């Protein structure tokens, strides 16, 4: 009897240990720099996390559907290069006098084509996703340089600056786009049968196939969705920086992977998941923003970030194993 009453409490603590760590970091920063919890700064954190978060949703979807095998599991290393290429296409189209929407349309087509090639190789040729997407990454790095001629491309458009600067309800539109995309992806993965199917395939592909799920179609769709999300974040990059610097994708790749894997800390079953990725992106955003606020040199930030994340994950994992 005693046992039964105790268990829920400890399992609740464990389920939320990721959130507790998150809260701890926020409290720490607020004590050091009271400005940290300003509404203005909070909206700023959302804005800073938006690009990273939106790409990471795409990768998280692929993780969920691809299973968690270290090498054979689903992954997409080309996703940030895809984002950079999309942004490059939009920027170059704008500079050549085309309408923004036309650029976005073309970027969407290209990005979906890339997603489709990845998906075809993974689903039909049964190639290891890691390798397919490394090759795709090489190709896209070259394509990005070809499009931009390896120069910074300015991108000026009324709509883009509207997205970046105009505020609705205390926050820039870009921050709201992040929240809305998060909600939509959350609904798709956590309250539709689609999400259940993706999780089922990730858990056990054969069982999912036996129960009548169209495995190929659904795995392919996660790659296509990642492509669409890459385009959205590419546009946000252009809006925020009003230019495109070649190589931005290579710099972000490992951050995106970190956020998507970090999402697991925020879940009961320790698996990648959409709300976890949302909080993971905010966590990384909070760390970057907070350390800048208390004047830690930028080159320390990554070390502290890496150490903190490893410590958080260690504590969560160890606690979880103790209970199970």
């Amino acid at each position, binding site marked *: 009897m005693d046992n039964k009453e105790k268990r829920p409490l400890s399992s609740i603590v464990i389920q939320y240990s990721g959130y507790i760590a998150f809260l701890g970091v926020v409290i720490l920063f607020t004590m050091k720099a009271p400005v940290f919890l300003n509404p203005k700064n909070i909206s700023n954190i959302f804005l800073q996390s938006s690009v990273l978060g939106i790409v990471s949703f795409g990768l998280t979807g692929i993780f969920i559907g691809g299973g*968690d095998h*270290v*090498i054979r599991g689903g992954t997409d*290393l080309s996703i940030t290069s895809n984002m950079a290429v999309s942004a490059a296409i939009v920027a170059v189209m704008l500079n050549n006098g085309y309408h923004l929407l036309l650029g976005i349309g073309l970027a969407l087509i290209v990005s979906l084509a890339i997603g489709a090639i990845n998906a075809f*190789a993974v689903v039909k*040729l*049964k*190639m*290891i996703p*890691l*390798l*397919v997407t*490394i*090759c*795709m*990454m*090489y*190709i*896209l*790095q*070259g*394509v990005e*340089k*070809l499009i931009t*001629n*390896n120069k910074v491309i300015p991108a000026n458009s009324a709509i883009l600056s509207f997205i970046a600067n105009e505020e609705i309800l205390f926050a820039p539109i870009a921050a709201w786009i992040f929240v809305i995309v998060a909600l939509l992806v959350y609904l798709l993965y956590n309250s539709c049968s689609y999400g259940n199917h993706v999780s089922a395939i990730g858990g056990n592909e054969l069982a999912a196939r036996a129960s009548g799920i169209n495995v190929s179609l659904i795995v392919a769709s996660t790659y296509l969705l990642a492509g669409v999300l890459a385009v959205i974040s590419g546009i946000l990059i252009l809006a925020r920086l009003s230019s495109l610097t070649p190589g931005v994708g*290579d710099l972000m790749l*490992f951050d995106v*992977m*970190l956020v998507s*894997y*970090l999402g*697991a800390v925020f879940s009961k079953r320790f698996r990648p998941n959409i709300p976890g990725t949302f909080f993971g992106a905010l966590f990384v955003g909070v760390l970057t923003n907070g350390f800048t606020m208390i004047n830690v*040199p*930028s*080159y*320390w*930030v*990554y*070390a*502290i*970030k*890496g*150490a903190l*994340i*490893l410590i958080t*994950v*260690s504590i969560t*994992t*160890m606690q979880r*194993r103790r209970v199970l």
Partner: protein
Amino acid sequence: MEKIKKVLYEYTTVIMLLIIFIFFSFSADGFLTLSNITTVLSQSSVLLLVSIGMCFVVISGGTDLSVAATYGLGGMVTVLCIQAGLPAPAAFLLAVLTGAIYGLINSFLILKVHITVWLTTLGTLFIGESIEKIVTKGGTPIYLSKVGGLFDYIGMGTLYSSQSESGVVTIKFSILLAIIVALIADFLLRKTVFGRNLYAAGLQRGAAKLAGVPVDKCVALAFVISGMCCSLGGIIGTSVLSSYIPVNGRYYLLDAIGTVFIGSTMHNRGFANIPGMLAGVLFFGLLTNGLNLLGVHFYWQNVVRGLLILLILAMDAYRRNRALSVVKNKK
């Protein structure tokens, strides 16, 4: 006819490599000369060492993203020690030791704390790269002038050099060192109990554990070997440049994954292995060299490289799928 088909299927990767080699020999002037081939070899030593490290970890059923960090840290420790006036052998020893410690940290986090391989090595990658930036005050390169001695020899020393009509033929000490490490690695993987255990641990960890294989020890050792090989790569890298450039390791990280998996297409069961990986390293080197000689623009080189690797891997996957379906049909 059937036999030819079978041979073609078995050796797809080798045939692709040969086709590329023959293509460059005919189209690129100066490709098929002794001096050019030895230059390509000499430039491949660092990638070879990092790939050997990656190979061990991949065989153990994981990946090691922190090779980029151990490469950088190895170089950093060497340069700092040399600056502090330590003799070169001591500096090299400390650098390799740093790599080994890094591997231990990785394996502790993975095996004892049970953090997933990707998250662990991503975390240690970030931490290592930051240490490089902190020590160099934000990433300014450290230049060494006139160190001489063993430090110069490990990266730039030549074993054999002669003037031929096509140019200077040189064989660098560094490539000999890398090949010796590769031979030792191949021996370890194929002829020792450790190697067999490592393959077993990578293939079916649970089954290997039940069969009494010391899985944790093997996997930990794989990460330590990876750290040591990469820091040795870092030593050679700094010696070649006689300077230390921080956060330079990522350049090798994804290439190393590429070479290891190209290598695994040459194994009949698709396992990562050293001889195949050597061919992979050679392929990367020859491809870059050939495209340069052909005058292909730098921007296009990435595209061509990606397409070719994709093609090789796709052909291998197609072959395996067909083999699988033949087995199924026979049943």
